[in-house]
């Protein structure tokens, strides 16, 4: 779900009155898709490409030791971010692999005693798809519905978890709508029945405080490129006490305590570690800024436009994610209008499948509203000037598109859209 942005970079000219702020276009407001690598992260990585290039598994010379030291420092930095022990961090290629390893790995290890998995319909595709594969292997998977605010209903969860459940997998922060699930409560329900609790924290790590001890999390997936680190590296936290065991997906030299073989990509890992360290130190400061910018965007749009709906719970959310439905304006046409702002849409017209977002549909958002949704992602590098430019551009284009929307026209004339017999096609 990414927009096509304009080629190159242009600077807004002073003759456009409200935008005389010298901001570089296009503006990036798609921080859930990925984040830019923090320059401090890049700086930390560079020596590991050139002078400290050793294989961390080489035990017999200083090149290997130096690389290994880089890896272990990073492991400690990542462990510190989530309140884990260093030994509980397993490096992977990203959250997709971590989720696969957690779900398939734990599922297959405990299959003889427990062959059920409980997850949620709004999970990332990689969680849902890993679960589908386990179904083919004979597992029973329950995909829980969510409430209208996008949160899991804890009573339904309690009913779904049985003493046959091996794993409960519920994401921390949703990538499309930003809602934060009640992890601690979910963990308690899983543990009542002796099941493990896994959370996909790709959108949460480095963004909201996470503590695997306090929250009783058994497995947690993290991705570096969502937290200002490099792409292609992630981690799976695997609890040691009580010990969680899993079947490896990738076999070979037995690295990462046998759970994930392969030579570790040292520069990526060092960058991931530095990104975790920065996130831990600056989370409070970053979040205060992000919340302010998010409120500014939301209020700025709502002051000038009516019928704009926030998707997902208003309170339990990461403020860097604002998913808004602009009623009567189709999302892709709006993205085309605001081309110099990079965002994503839940509209079918933007997806290869021409299906609207399954996450919004799961919230009970009407299809016509799902088609009008735009996700704004705000992050560490977002500025106030960018937000102001975004507000102005969005308001202008929504007004223009509503003027050409037959639905807007009908609603203004007092026609109930539901009373119309629409033609099928």
């Amino acid at each position: 779900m990414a927009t096509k942005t304009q080629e190159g970079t242009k600077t807004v000219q002073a003759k456009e009155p409200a935008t005389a702020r010298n901001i570089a276009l296009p503006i990036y407001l798609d921080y859930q898709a990925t984040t830019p690598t923090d320059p401090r992260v890049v700086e930390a990585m560079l020596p590991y490409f050139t002078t400290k290039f050793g294989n961390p598994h080489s035990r017999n010379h200083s090149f290997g030791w130096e690389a290994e030291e880089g890896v272990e420092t990073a492991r400690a930095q990542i462990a510190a971010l989530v309140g884990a022990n260093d030994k509980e961090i397993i490096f992977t290629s990203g959250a997709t692999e971590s989720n696969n390893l957690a779900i398939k790995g734990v599922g297959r290890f405990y299959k003889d005693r427990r062959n059920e998995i409980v997850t949620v319909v709004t999970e990332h595709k990689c969680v849902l798809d890993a679960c589908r594969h386990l179904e083919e292997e004979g597992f029973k998977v329950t995909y829980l519905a969510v409430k209208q605010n996008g949160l899991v209903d804890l009573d339904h969860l309690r009913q779904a978890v049985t003493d046959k459940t091996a794993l409960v997998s519920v994401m921390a922060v949703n990538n499309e709508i930003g809602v934060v699930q009640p992890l601690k409560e979910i963990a308690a329900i899983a543990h009542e029945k002796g099941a493990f609790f896994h959370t996909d924290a790709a959108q949460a790590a480095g963004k909201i405080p996470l503590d695997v001890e306090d929250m009783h999390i058994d497995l947690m997936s993290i991705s570096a490129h969502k937290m200002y680190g490099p792409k292609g590296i992630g981690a799976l936290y695997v609890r040691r006490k009580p010990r969680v065991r899993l079947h490896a997906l990738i076999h070979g030299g037995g690295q990462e305590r046998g759970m994930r073989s392969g030579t570790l990509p040292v520069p990526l890992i060092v960058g991931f570690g530095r990104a975790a360290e920065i996130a831990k130190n600056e989370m409070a400061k970053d979040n205060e800024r992000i919340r302010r910018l998010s409120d500014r965007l939301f209020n700025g749009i709502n002051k000038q436009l009516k019928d704009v709906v926030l998707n997902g719970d208003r309170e339990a959310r990461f403020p860097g994610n604002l998913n808004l439905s602009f009623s009567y304006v189709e999302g892709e046409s709006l993205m085309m209008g605001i081309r110099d702002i990079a965002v994503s849409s839940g509209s079918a017209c933007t997806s290869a499948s021409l299906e609207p977002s399954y996450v919004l549909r799961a919230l009970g958002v009407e299809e016509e509203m799902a088609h009008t949704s735009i996700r704004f992602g705000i992050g560490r590098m977002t500025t106030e000037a960018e937000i102001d430019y975004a507000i102005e551009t969005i308001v202008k284009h929504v007004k223009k598109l509503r003027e050409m929307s037959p639905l807007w026209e009908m609603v203004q004339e007092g026609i109930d859209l539901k009373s119309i017999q629409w033609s099928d096609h």
Partner: protein
Amino acid sequence: MAYGEKLIDHYENPRNIGAMDKHATDVGTGLVGAPACGDVMKLQIKVSAEGIIEDAKFKTFGCGSAIASSSLVTEWVKGKTLDEAESIKNTQIAQHLALPPVKIHCSVLAEDAIKAAIADYRKKSGKPGAAHVNAEPAKVAAE
């Protein structure tokens, strides 16, 4: 998605946006698509006593390709007879705007909209044309 120049031009400077009196006997209205599918097109034509389309207006809820397709057909139908307008094919629209394959159905909708508008006009004016009509306009119930 990368779009062609003509498409972007029609999207940015859409021709003939607006509405005409749907009750007027010389106006035909076609309303096709559905909000749940993400696309609704309303296309109206004003027909002279000689059976020539004098004016056309549209409003579209849909992607950029749908907006551009409807804008383009309003330009094309003006000055045409009903039969001529009815022979416009979605493939011509798609070709002119260089629509990518996943956007072909947006041009189909534009073809349906023009057919529906013509059918509505014929029904209202009691002047059935030669060609058969296969697109039924959606019914506006709350009139």
